[in-house]
């Protein structure tokens, strides 16, 4: 095992050119930071697309402010065209899922945290890791290029249902549809490369004493997520390649006119897609667990059941894809089966929520910005989880399937869940990345304004959805039964603009603190993780000699700690024994 990762520690003292150090870096921390900048950019782009969607839904047919800068194939006299609108909804979903939330959680934090938290010098395969980033960026650029080709980008929704996505004569887009498939294939490659790395690193490179059940829940979650990704993404890649063949080579996998099966795509897509949903939430749950334990100054409540809940959610996640297809014409008996597995997933999810509550119970709660966002995560994820039960119950799903109710649900999970978790994780590990703290006051202002406006945007969507408003409608006022709801749509739109505006506070705080933030002390959050045994930012190669681990990650307020209310994993007490199996590397 003589790879670069385990090269003698003097490697990190050697001077490196700017390009080697920051651009074509094999250092897991730099790669994580690269992912951070790129995916925050795509998060912003996704938000920009969402604003245009909201303008059109709130004020259909009215000229959009600033719409004049867009070409006439998208916007005419300031009015968004229907074909541009469906490109907007397609790309909002695509960018947010594949290029913002997924790389933010997995690309950034799996890369950055795994070696630091398990105590190793770098990833098992640093060069594959570097490729994983560059392929993800390439995929993002290919996807973005779709906007600049004739007829614009893909128009079939982010779920790319066939045969609409397979037939240019029906969708009106040719090159854009192909670019979507190519981009997804490249992204899948990136994701698999990253995931094999995370899995291998966690299995083989844990520090002495870092047993499986001494791993922080964030690492557990990222480990399980990586397993999901390595199994799920190839399914999507395969499906995307088949779709690309349908579009280019004249195959008919998904086109019933020539003997294909329209529903085959949905099975393949959701067989990937539902594990993907958990790829988008499990790392968030893991990091929130770390932060809530830290903020509560208490061990996580029921650590083992938290681990089993992650594994349980991940396992059940493979058995529920059909609940996206209750109305699709799939055999209704299958619907019954998928309903049961879907309802069962509520159980491990409930365990997690109650255990977070248990962690806070009788704690000594410190409300730093990460903790505020983590508590908001628990609160909002609960709403998102509970609203899922409505759609899991098949008869109730009938009226609300494919309406704004599902839009509300998925945003409560992905924004209220994943994004709040990221608003917790980014300031929490910011000092470890950049050596400075993000501004606490701006962080709190951003948190409260986001929390309020976010709920004003997404909670009313439940009502709109119950009223029957279908998804992806360019102009809901075409329907008489939706006209009375239009004032609420306008309200949502105005709130969405406020929500978007508030994010500039975060953007400012993030960028300003890079240069002007307060210098971070070595362990700013009084945390137990191994990463805080290093200076901020952590040097290339991390440790000269990896630390020994003596205990689990959540020994806050342990009696042995004496007057201190935390006890880091690497601190040796007189009663601790040296871990077995230390190899000098």
């Amino acid at each position: 095992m003589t790879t670069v990762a385990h090269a003698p520690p003097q490697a990190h003292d050697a001077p490196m050119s700017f390009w080697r150090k920051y651009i074509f870096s094999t250092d897991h921390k730099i790669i994580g930071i690269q992912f951070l900048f790129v995916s925050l950019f795509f998060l912003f782009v996704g938000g920009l697309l969402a604003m245009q969607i909201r303008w059109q839904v709130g004020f259909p047919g009215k000229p959009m402010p600033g719409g004049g800068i867009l070409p006439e194939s998208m916007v005419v006299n300031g009015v968004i065209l229907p074909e541009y609108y469906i490109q907007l909804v397609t790309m909002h979903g695509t960018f947010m899922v594949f290029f913002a939330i997924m790389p933010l959680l997995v690309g950034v934090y799996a890369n950055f945290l795994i070696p630091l938290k398990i105590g190793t010098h770098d990833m098992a395969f640093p060069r594959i890791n570097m490729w994983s980033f560059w392929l993800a960026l390439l995929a993002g650029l290919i996807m973005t290029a779709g906007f600049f080709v004739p007829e614009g980008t893909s128009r079939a929704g982010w779920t790319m249902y066939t045969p609409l996505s397979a037939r240019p004569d029906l969708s009106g887009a040719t090159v854009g549809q192909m670019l979507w498939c190519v981009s997804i294939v490249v992204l899948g490659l990136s994701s698999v490369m990253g995931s094999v790395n995370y899995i291998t690193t966690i299995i083989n490179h844990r520090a002495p004493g870092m047993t499986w059940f001494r791993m922080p829940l964030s690492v557990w979650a990222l480990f399980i997520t990586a397993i999901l990704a390595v199994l799920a993404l190839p399914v999507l890649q395969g499906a995307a390649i088949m779709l690309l063949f349908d579009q280019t080579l004249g195959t008919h996998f998904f086109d019933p006119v020539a003997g294909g099966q329209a529903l085959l795509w949905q099975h393949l897509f959701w067989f990937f897609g539902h594990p993907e949903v958990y790829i988008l939430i499990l790392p968030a749950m893991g990091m929130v667990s770390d932060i809530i334990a830290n903020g509560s100054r208490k061990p996580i409540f029921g650590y083992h059941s938290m681990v089993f809940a992650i594994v349980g959610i991940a396992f059940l996640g493979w058995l529920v894809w059909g609940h996206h297809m209750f109305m699709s014409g799939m055999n209704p008996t299958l619907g019954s089966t998928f309903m049961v597995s879907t309802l069962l997933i509520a159980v491990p999810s409930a365990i997690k929520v109650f255990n977070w509550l248990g962690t806070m119970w009788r704690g000594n709660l410190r409300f730093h910005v990460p903790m505020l966002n983590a508590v908001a995560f628990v609160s909002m994820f609960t709403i998102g989880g509970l609203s899922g039960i409505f759609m899991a119950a098949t008869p109730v799903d009938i009226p609300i399937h494919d309406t704004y109710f599902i839009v509300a649900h998925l945003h409560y999970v992905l924004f209220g869940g994943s994004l709040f978790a990221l608003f917790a994780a980014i300031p929490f590990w910011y000092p470890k990345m950049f050596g400075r703290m993000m501004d606490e006051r701006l962080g709190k202002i951003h948190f409260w304004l986001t929390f309020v406006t976010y709920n004003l945007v997404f909670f009313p969507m439940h009502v709109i959805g119950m009223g029957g408003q279908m998804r992806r409608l360019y102009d809901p006022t075409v329907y008489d039964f939706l006209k009375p709801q239009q004032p609420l749509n306008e309200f949502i739109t105005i709130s969405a603009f406020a929500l978007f505006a508030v994010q500039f506070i975060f953007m400012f705080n993030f960028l300003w603190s890079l240069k002007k933030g307060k210098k971070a002390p070595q362990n700013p959050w009084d945390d137990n993780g191994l990463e805080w045994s290093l200076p901020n930012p952590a040097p290339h190669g991390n440790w000269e000699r990896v630390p020994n681990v003596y205990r689990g990650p959540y020994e806050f307020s342990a009696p042995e700690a004496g007057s201190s209310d935390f006890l880091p994993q690497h601190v040796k007490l007189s009663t601790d024994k040296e871990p077995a199996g230390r190899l000098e590397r």
Partner: protein
Amino acid sequence: MKGRLFGLVGGVFLLTVCSKGATPRPANESDASTPPAAATDESSTTQQGGGATITGRIKFTGTAPRNRPIDMSEEAACKAKYTTNPPAEETVVTGPANALANVFVYIREGLPASAKYPAPATPVVLDQDGCRYKPHVLGIMVGQGLEIRNSDPVLHNIKAVAKKNRPFNVSQPTAGMKTTRTFSAPEVMVNLECNVHGWMTAFVGVRPDPFYAVTGPDGSFTINGLPPGTYTIEAWHERFGTQTATVTVTGTESKTANFTFAAR
């Protein structure tokens, strides 16, 4: 690695350039009253033009099928535009004395292969009014702008079904919208359809030369400015198919070519 990165950037740039070329800006919008198939007038100015004229009258025999009425009750804004006569399909439009309208007449063969005719700057206008295409059959030159207008306050999409030209599918959600498209290859006919209103169809004859016409309600057509030569002219009707005739013209003479379709 660097080279790869630059290649990527270059690729994206190239795509940007392509997109600009493929989304044409509206051409000259000043002349809104250009009648379709008016291209004949301009041909006299081209080098290859001549002074000969072919005229004719198109009739049908038998009983013309009745055009089916269109039920526009689910599109109130369009239905309101028909106060006297209820709208009907335009598959077979006839005039007095068995005259057949909406026949596209063009020179199929006989023009010198080297002849090049510049496309006029004024676009051909296709209006969507009362959930109908006006006109129903039109001719256009390769490279000439087709200005598609929406005079209805409802969504129309314009889907061009073509074999030799690049198909397109664009939409106009509000009244007053204009889109200009051009065709790059001769094709008889490019079909236009609106998928929101299944009855809406139009036919566009795309020609490399200005020698074509569409018959009016009296069934007559005139193609003038032809150089001397022997021509195969074809008459196309959406229901009754095509017929051809061979005509030889010299100098500034005027010849007649009549066609008679059998109604079926």
